[in-house]
């Protein structure tokens, strides 16, 4: 029989232009290919996450995907109550014999776009626009800076955060304003890791004739010619794979950290940014990519010690 599947998005919702949306896309792809449906709900608070998870578990679902680290505790608790139901948690690590925790090495992907940014920049001043000042966002920033500095040690990275409330993910005006102010300080490439606010950043980059870097999904198509690349975080693949494994009976519990090697993160090169990525840039980025995969270069995860080496 077909597996019964479900997704619980976190407070950002399935259209957050970030990992929730990516998860939704992966599940949709699975649905299209297999014609197997899935149930989806959004949990606006941690309490609701638990409620939703339990609600879905009671429906005897086979696999429930929980998107976002905010659901960690809820997954842990509900997984214990329903040992027959399988869970996959994105961006967090939960204990349990029936839980597969998937985290991503955002720092590795960010490193690559940092390399590309440092090379593409003429002023050697790079910008970073984050949503809220939390460890996850700092991991992006830190990887980005490592990549940039490894390429061009004197490069300067200016960082700004949009805000401190949930509104910080949906404030394109502020996202744009931060980019503008960075441009006025000489920045010419900006990496936007701020959900919907980041769209304002990319839009401003296009308007001002500067370069933007997208995040999570491949955002190159948004403003072809002015988005240098995107740091893709393949939550979609993670979900798609989980669902597939469930269908094929190969699903396994455990903890997976997906980096470049595992195809969890990457940079995006397609027809939309082909012209921006010169052969030198491409060569350098691919080189760095290989070094990381081979373990020659070790990108430090901000979250490991709560500090950034550069």
């Amino acid at each position, binding site marked *: 029989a077909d597996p019964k599947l479900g997704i619980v998005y976190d407070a950002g919702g399935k259209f957050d232009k970030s990992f929730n949306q990516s998860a939704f896309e992966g599940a949709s792809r699975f649905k299209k290919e297999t014609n197997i449906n899935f149930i989806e709900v959004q949990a606006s608070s941690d309490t609701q996450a638990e409620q939703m998870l339990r609600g879905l578990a009671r429906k005897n679902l086979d696999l429930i995907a929980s998107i976002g680290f905010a659901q960690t505790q809820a997954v842990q608790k509900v997984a214990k109550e329903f040992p027959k139901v399988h869970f996959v948690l994105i961006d967090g690590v939960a204990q349990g014999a029936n839980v597969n925790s998937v985290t991503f090495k955002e720092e590795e992907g960010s490193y690559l776009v940092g390399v590309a940014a440092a090379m593409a920049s003429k002023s050697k001043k790079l910008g970073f626009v984050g949503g809220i000042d939390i460890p996850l966002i700092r991991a992006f920033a830190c990887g980005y800076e490592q990549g940039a500095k490894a390429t061009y040690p004197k490069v300067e990275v200016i*960082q700004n955060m949009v805000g*401190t409330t949930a*509104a910080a993910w949906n404030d394109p005006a502020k996202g744009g304003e931060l980019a503008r102010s960075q441009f006025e*300080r000489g920045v010419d490439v900006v990496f936007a890791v701020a959900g919907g606010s980041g769209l304002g950043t990319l839009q401003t980059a296009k308007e001002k004739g500067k370069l933007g870097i997208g995040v999570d999904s491949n955002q190159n198509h948004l403003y072809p010619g002015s988005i240098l690349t995107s740091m893709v975080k393949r939550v979609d693949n993670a979900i798609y794979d989980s669902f597939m494994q469930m269908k094929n009976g190969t699903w396994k519990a455990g903890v997976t950290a997906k980096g470049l090697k595992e195809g969890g993160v990457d940079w995006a090169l397609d027809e939309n940014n082909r012209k921006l990525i010169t052969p030198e840039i491409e060569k350098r980025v691919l080189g760095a990519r290989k070094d990381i995969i081979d373990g020659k270069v070790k990108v430090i995860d901000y979250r490991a010690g709560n500090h950034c080496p550069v």
Partner: protein
Amino acid sequence: MTFADLHLDSVLVSTVRNAPVLIFAAMAGLFAERSGVIDIGLEGKILASAFVSAAVAFATQNPWYGVAAGMAVSAALAMLQAYVAITQKGNQLVGGIAINIAMSGLTFVLAQFFFQQGGRTPDLGQARLFDVVLPGSAAVEHIPFLGWLYAHLIGGHSVLVYLAFALVPLVHWVIYHSRFGLRLRACGENPHAADAAGVNVERQRYLAMLVAGVLCSFSGAYLAIVQSGFFLRDMSAGAGYLALTAMVFGNWRPVYTFLGCLMFGFFGAVQIQIEGVELPVVGRIPGSLIQMVPYVVTVIVLAGLMAKSVAPKALGTPFVKSR
């Protein structure tokens, strides 16, 4: 850190660019509240007009149609608020908050229904308002200071920015030197006196709300068509409440309210500049703490310098002909 690190030029330009959202909404609130109707529903009207103006500008590929449509919707919401506050004599705070909450939900549902992009409208592309380039900007560009002043601080903004700044003297004149303003103030201060003097209080308040609705729509249009180039759910991000704050801060007077808006704009811009910068004495302030700068400044200014705020006396009380 040196003075140059402050990037004062960038801060000033940023202030000019950020203030219009607040100025339009605060001036809107001023009209409503000077007539005696509390307008806590600015946020909802901004959001509604942002959505409608982006959607219409996209559909017609003409930003002006977008602005006009936003105006119509924001005015219609203001009329609903007026009907609640004036005709139904309902609680004005409740009416305003209801509009805020309802619009937060409805704009998302509609945006999703029409565009299927997760509560976002498509990018407006060319259907945005143009920036005004003052004649001869290119020529003076390289002259130190003056070039910057002319081409970047004064010139180079969207038409709506100029409208916002032009609005301030205009509102001042209307409030203090026109018949409309005289009656408006009388209705907000002592509607019974206005009524006894032959002023139709309800009509005056409806008119005030209409003006408020129209002015507020520019705020939304500016956010969507000028600043962002698309609509995004909940993109007003508290601008309506901040505008209301600027108005109270300015003691319900146009020029002081305007200064309040500039202050928010200015400290918002300063906050961007000092994020991550090594400051004298305090050193590097963590990003999340930097975010509170504009708000802390407001509280300090309010507590330290300003005299007691005096709201229009009849603010919030429906006009009932009885003692």
